[in-house]
């Protein structure tokens, strides 16, 4: 209680950290909206103008937002909507319909969802009545009745737009674009997609009704901006309860970002992908290491997190194989080398393995065929090997043709890391031909 009285009194360290975690986690995981969109001001302005024309003047529009995954398409749209809804006139006028290609997998479901979200009169509670045809006719009738001056504008937001193009006959898209082209109720159709060739997916009649207005979000980010972004993402806001802690934290973050090794790590991530989601993932991993015992992010944390992100998953899996399975993989590698990537079967692999055993006097790996078969099947379960053709049922298991899904360097690297790898096995793997 005393805490609440004295607002500016410093909180204990644990509480501060909890609070900081809370704030930063919200930011990384929920992708909270920034106050102002960064780097996409022009697109923001364009889209805002466009939607305002629909919302205020009743002009029908259609637009596609195109950009790679994690480029901030949804964020841009949300920002625009937030800014748009600040005007009271728009607020009470505009109707929104949110659809997602992942959820509304066919037109029937999408139509029900539209009817539900528009609260039309064949909706009771949240149940929608009527067949698909009735629903469509009803909806179109409702849209047609309206005109530019009197009816409320509707904003259709189609996320994962490319998935809507896979619906049968593209009925929904056709009707939406058709309404936006003719003088009916004012609607704006905003599609969000990550496919650059999305217009090729549309049918000709649908394409001709689309306004061909596209907003591209292609990141033109430089590394300095990237670094800056990492810093702002990690720093605490001004309204943090304990200002002294926030100040210290922010100073720590600044020194962290100036560290040479940190810069190197971030550079590597920047070169592999520019999107912010992978950055968020990296920072989230760093943040999770912060505790009372270690209240700041150290460069070593970032290094560890980056190692975790960039680790080769297949090499990790190879590490856990038994020595017999590893021997089989080496035999497969040799077969691939000798026969230049031709598929192989279990018999050939076993034969290759037997040749290795014959050269070695000690026969500690002398296993029966069924034991080897079991190891081989385990490799198949892990999808490290894969059947070359799908006609699996016809042939006997030992003669089924397989392909190795690993490359040379992965195997050699895994062999180096393998715990207590026998020397003769290692040498066998090194030797060029069997």
């Amino acid at each position, binding site marked *: 209680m005393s805490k609440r009285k004295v607002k500016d009194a410093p909180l204990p360290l644990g509480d501060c950290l*909890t609070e900081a975690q809370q704030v930063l986690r919200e930011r990384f995981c929920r992708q909270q909206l920034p106050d102002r969109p960064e780097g996409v001001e022009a697109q923001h302005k364009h889209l805002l103008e466009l939607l305002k024309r629909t919302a205020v003047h009743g002009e029908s529009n259609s637009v596609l937002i195109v950009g790679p995954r994690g480029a901030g398409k949804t964020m841009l749209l949300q920002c625009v909507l937030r800014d748009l809804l600040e005007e009271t006139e728009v607020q009470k006028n505009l109707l929104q319909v949110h659809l997602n290609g992942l959820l509304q*997998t066919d037109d029937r*479901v999408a139509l029900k969802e539209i009817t539900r979200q528009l609260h039309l009169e064949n909706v009771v509670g949240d149940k929608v009545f009527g067949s698909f045809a009735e629903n469509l006719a009803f909806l179109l009738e409702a849209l047609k009745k309206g005109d530019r001056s009197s009816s409320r504008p509707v904003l259709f937001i189609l996320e994962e737009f490319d998935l809507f193009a896979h619906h049968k006959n593209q009925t929904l898209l056709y009707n939406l674009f058709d309404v936006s082209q003719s003088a009916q109720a004012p609607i704006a159709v905003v599609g969000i997609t990550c496919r650059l060739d999305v217009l090729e997916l549309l049918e000709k009649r649908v394409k001709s009704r689309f306004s061909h207005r596209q907003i591209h979000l292609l990141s033109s980010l430089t590394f300095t901006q990237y670094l800056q972004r990492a810093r702002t993402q990690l720093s605490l806001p001004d309204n943090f309860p304990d200002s002294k802690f926030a100040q210290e934290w922010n100073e720590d973050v600044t020194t962290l970002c100036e560290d040479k090794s940190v810069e190197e790590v971030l550079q590597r991530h920047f070169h592999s992908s520019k999107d912010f989601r992978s950055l968020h993932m990296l920072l989230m991993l760093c943040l999770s290491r912060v505790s009372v015992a270690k209240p700041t992010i150290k460069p070593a944390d970032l290094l560890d997190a980056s190692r975790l992100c960039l680790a080769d*998953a297949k090499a990790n899996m190879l590490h856990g194989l*038994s020595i*017999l399975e590893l021997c089989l993989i080496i035999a497969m590698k040799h077969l691939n080398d000798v026969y230049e990537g031709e598929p192989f079967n279990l018999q050939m692999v076993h034969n290759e393995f037997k040749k290795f055993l014959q050269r070695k006097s000690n026969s500690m790996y002398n296993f029966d065929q069924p*034991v080897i078969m079991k190891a081989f099947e385990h490799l198949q379960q892990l999808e490290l090997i894969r059947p070359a053709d799908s006609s699996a049922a016809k042939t006997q298991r030992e003669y089924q043709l397989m392909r190795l899904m690993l490359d040379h360097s992965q195997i050699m690297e895994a062999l180096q890391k393998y715990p207590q790898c026998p020397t003769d096995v290692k040498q066998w793997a090194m030797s060029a031909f069997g």
Partner: protein
Amino acid sequence: MTTLLQHPGYEEEKLQRVAELLLCREVQAGTLLSLMGQPQQRCYPSIFIYGHRASGKSHVMNVLLKELELPHAVVSCVECVSAVLLFEQVLLSFFGCDAVSLLPRSPSLSDFVRIYRQQCSPSPAKQTRYIVMEKAELLRDTDANLLPALLRLQELVEDNVTVILLSEIVWDKFRPNTGCFEPLLLHFPDYSKGELQQILSQDRNPSYSAEFYSAYINILLGVFYSVCRDLRELRHLAALNFSKFCEPLSEGKVKETDTHKLWRNIEPHLKKAMQTVYLREVSSLQWEQIQQMDEKETGALRGLSAHTHVELPYYSKFLLIAAYLASYNPARTDKRFFLKHHGKIRKTNFMKKNEKTSNHLLGPKPFPLDRLLAIFYSVVDSRVAPTASIFSQISSLVTLQLLAQVSHDDQLDAPKYKCAVSLDFICAISRTVNFDIVKYLYDFL
């Protein structure tokens, strides 16, 4: 040990209990716990955990969620043959049966998300909700939208929910064509030999000392470690063979400390176990029965694969032999093998073969019916009329899956077959009819 599992959001004693249950997985549990954060904090939308079979993925998840009393739904993708079952299970464990009854008859993903939102809007999650999907590799075979939707479920339902995927297969094989929300990847490494020893030594028999049992585990790992690292399999084998290990002790022949003699006693037994119980040739019940009657040699009982011999009619046997010869011999050598007066065939040409083309490596080749019958008449000494019974025997061999019909384009006109039996099997068959098959096989000349 408990220093790794510390988190301000949870009670000390609960964490203590978790740490006791999670042997050798403290590092992974600690990482997970710090990623999950305090119950009321946000967690990353999706976490993908991969690792080998029996590396404690489900166990760690279950113990953490149960002991810390977090709201969670555990869904096994093997059980969920359709997405509907998944929806029902998730709604049931988060919101109770009322929510499930709201689902329409054949719910789509859209209905699920709508009902989830509806349910959670009056009571937004005070704690992070977790959906654990076991054997997540099966999600790839279901509806193509399901996996991407699950990965961004947090965004779709606007609730503090985290989807955790557990799988044996690496994430690269999951990624859909147009990409998706990337989950956070976490690897559970395999147990090292020392860790396996430590875990297996946990479930010791109380009537024997700890050193005795750990010596036993040591011997067991010495035999099986190079073949199998699956903890469950090893635990099963350890439980099965322990009574045999104790046998000399109860007979009073050796003392507990005499490790070498105990090893001498158990090692051949374990080697035999690898050929039988490990391959499930002999069921564990049978194995235990064998151990009871010690006068009978272990493994004398025939396993599953020894039961493969089939009683066939006389001509069927020859048909099968002929099919085997047709499958594994090149057609150009038929004249040399099966014709009495085959004229001159140059020996060098005939014998020219390299190992790469050996049919016992490459597998059986398809052959036409005519060739099968020609070889059949040649190997059967008596005169056989091509009656309906001979042809029906061929088709019944196909239904027995001893032969396989290769192409389905024509049933009657020149069908092609493949022989689908092993060398051991055909040798056993030819022995019953006094036919020396090895003499006729090109690979063994």
